[in-house]
């Protein structure tokens, strides 16, 4: 899993059947210090997260299948938690 900031939503009418009726969020991976790192990704929302939220994102097919309660499909990136606070973090500075 990784920490990310929800920075937007993706609207797609034509998409794989397993993505129908799923909210697609644009997530920017961040460090525990909340600095952007790496490339943004599109994730399926499972916790009713919204723009601006700091979230935990799982990027693995079995995790996605379990969270979305369905057989393994094409989804691997899912928002699985909204972060209230990150304590510590051991930043190398």
């Amino acid at each position, binding site marked *: 899993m990784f920490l990310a900031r929800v*920075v*937007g939503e993706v609207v797609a009418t034509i*998409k794989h059947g397993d993505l129908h009726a799923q909210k697609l969020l644009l997530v920017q991976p961040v460090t525990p210090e909340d600095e952007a790192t790496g490339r943004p990704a599109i994730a399926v929302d499972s916790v009713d997260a919204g723009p601006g939220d700091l979230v935990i994102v799982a990027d693995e*097919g079995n995790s996605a299948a379990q969270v979305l309660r369905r057989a393994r*499909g*094409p989804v691997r*990136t899912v928002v699985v938690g909204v972060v209230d606070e990150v304590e510590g973090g051991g930043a190398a500075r």
Partner: protein
Amino acid sequence: MHFARVIGTVVCSVRVPSWRGHRTLLLQPTDPGGKDLGGRLVAVDLVSAAPGQRVFYVRGREAANALPDPDNPADAAIVGIVDEVRQGGWVRPAGGRG
């Protein structure tokens, strides 16, 4: 899943039978705004995308799972066509359908 722009079609006279009925397209990954990002790749198309369109794709084992029969060797699959990316304000995708 990540953003990309369809930049071509990859036509094969010989191909694994498990991809029958699905085209292989050439993708240029992009950032959410449509700017090129990283190297091009070949992906199996699940949404009848066309060159110039903005799409999103999945990589890894889940790409094969996108096909009706998951017993196939795909490691990248196009699973959606981007209408709009809402990032603060509404951003119109370049090369979209409208």
